[in-house]
């Protein structure tokens, strides 16, 4: 980001011009600017070093820099090691349970008799994993998700903003929303098959239904939780109604909108898999269900793991977009830490 870089350049010459900065605030930006400060300090040291006959200044500088580097690395790695270790423990425990359960064919109410071993699933992955059939199923599921999700976003966000802002729009839409919302997307399967001309459209519709309500409701909530003083401030500064939406209400609701998108994406996957299992041809859900019908147990687990990874990737992408689009949240009180 170019603007951030220029901030670092500007801060330094001004620092002595404003010695009366409030300490709380002065400390925070100072902390934020440490890389710049270090860079400046070292370059400053270099200038001084070239003018004064200090013996071997390079060594001193490198030593302190490496020190800083190692300290930083040590701190980062210690935090990272703990995080990674705990992640390994949590996933490892699951695999261990699975492995032991299948190895000894445990039978204590839950039955591991027919559950494939991790190795069988791994073999399945190497055989089926790169087959055309498997990849096509994934691609079709992803396409359905993208269509359903983006249509839900394109309708849910603007409608949510309008409902949140205008009492009359709210009065008009909320009754129907309240009636439709409790109906799970899966319950729409028969109706959807009747409504839409082909299978593909009906599955996309079910995915859309799943994603739509979380997005809509979170957007409405975002508008409502927006501090009224910001709207008043914007109007005082001459914002038109359209500008108010674009420059205040939309960015102000964005954190909640992203919550809605993340939840909506999760529900979209749930709905999609269910729809594919019931009415589908193709898709990861269909792949999993077909494996069950064909008594191909390792493929069931492969399908499940695939669904898990796809869901993880999708919510990861949304979270990443959120971080990129809302850089200010890094500084918000109680925000990202």
């Amino acid at each position, binding site marked *: 980001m170019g603007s951030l870089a220029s*901030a670092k350049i500007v801060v330094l010459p001004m620092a002595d011009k404003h010695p009366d900065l*409030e300490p709380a605030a002065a400390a925070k930006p100072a902390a934020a600017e440490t890389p710049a400060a270090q860079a400046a300090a070292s370059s400053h040291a270099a200038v001084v070093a070239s003018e004064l006959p200090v013996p071997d200044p390079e060594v001193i500088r490198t030593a302190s820099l490496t020190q800083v580097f190692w300290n930083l690395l040590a701190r980062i790695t210690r935090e990272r090691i703990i995080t990674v270790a705990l992640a390994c423990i949590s996933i490892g425990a699951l695999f261990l349970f699975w492995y032991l359960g299948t190895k000894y064919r445990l039978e204590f109410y839950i039955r591991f008799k027919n559950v494939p071993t991790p190795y069988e699933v791994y073999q399945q992955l190497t055989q089926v994993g790169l087959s055309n059939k498997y990849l096509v199923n994934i691609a079709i599921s992803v396409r359905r998700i993208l269509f359903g999700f983006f249509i839900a976003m394109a309708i849910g966000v603007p409608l949510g903003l309008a409902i949140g802002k205008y009492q009359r729009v709210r009065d008009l839409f909320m009754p129907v929303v309240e009636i439709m919302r409790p109906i799970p997307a899966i319950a729409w399967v028969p109706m959807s098959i009747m409504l839409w001309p082909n299978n593909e459209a009906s599955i996309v519709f079910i995915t859309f239904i799943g994603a739509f309500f979380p997005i809509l409701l979170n957007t409405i909530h975002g508008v409502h939780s927006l501090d009224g003083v910001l709207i*008043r*401030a914007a109007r*005082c*500064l*001459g914002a038109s109604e359209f500008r108010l939406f674009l420059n205040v209400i939309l960015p102000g609701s964005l954190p909640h909108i992203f919550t809605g998108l993340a939840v909506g994406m999760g529900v979209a996957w749930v709905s999609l898999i269910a729809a594919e299992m019931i009415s589908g041809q193709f898709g990861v859900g269909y792949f999993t269900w077909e494996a069950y019908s064909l008594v191909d147990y390792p493929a069931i687990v492969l399908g499940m793991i695939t669904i898990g990874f796809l869901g993880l990737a999708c919510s990861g992408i949304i979270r990443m977009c959120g971080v990129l689009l809302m850089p*200010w949240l890094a500084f918000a009180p109680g925000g990202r830490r």
Partner: protein
Amino acid sequence: MTMVMANTEIHKGFIDVRDMGVVFGANDSKVVAVDNVSLNVQPGEFVSLIGPSGCGKSTLLSIVAGFMKPTRGEALLDGKAITKPGSDRGVVFQQYSLFPWLSVRKNVEFGLKMAGVEQSKRNTTARALLDLAGLLSFENHYPDQLSGGMKQRIGIVRALATSPQVLLMDEPFGALDTQTRVVMQEILTNIWQQFRISVLFITHDIEESIFLSDRIYVMTARPGRIKAEIKVPLPRPRRAEMTDTPEFMNLVQELKGLIREESLAAMAPEIKDRGLSGFGMKVGPKGVGEIF
């Protein structure tokens, strides 16, 4: 950097509030917030409105800002009735009202952007104003990275960016600690000295109102009426040392007397009759039955 946007048309920015009354609710729940208030702010004048909490001073400011309409009377700016908010009146709020998603500079630029001013010009103006507020080095920070005093300084220059004719300030330093407050008052007088626009300043702090203003209106407790109008003859520019002069002290005493009566009146009538010495727990609850 020179201030290019100072108010050269010194004859503009005349606020005239005439026979204003504000009533909230209807019938049984009717509350008269403001009753028969007339006041004015001459072009380029700094006027404070002071009174006990709940006396309707913020309501008055909301009307002048255009956020609400009075039940009776009218508010005029340069002879024209005020009906809605607009960039001819800059407003500084008590709560921090910076847009958290915009950098400090973009916040200051906001009004100019709404007015369709091109980017390079916006940038120059915003930087000049930030320099004036002593915050140019923070132009690319986000508001959440700044202290309360800094946020309010930015709020002030943001309101000035569109070159309004008047500045309306609703207890802008109310949320700040005492030390920061005093510094902010000095900064505000300096900024005002450069712009010379009309200011209507709401506060409940007596010293603050004297230090800043040319004239002070004292309001009564609810229903809010104008109780007194006091001129502040202290010379400009105001300095922090002036608060120790006898003139300043006398004004403080005079205002304290006026306000104290109203603050007492604003509380429950029993307290007013008894005086503050009448406070104190008489008898505690005897048993659980008495509590529920």
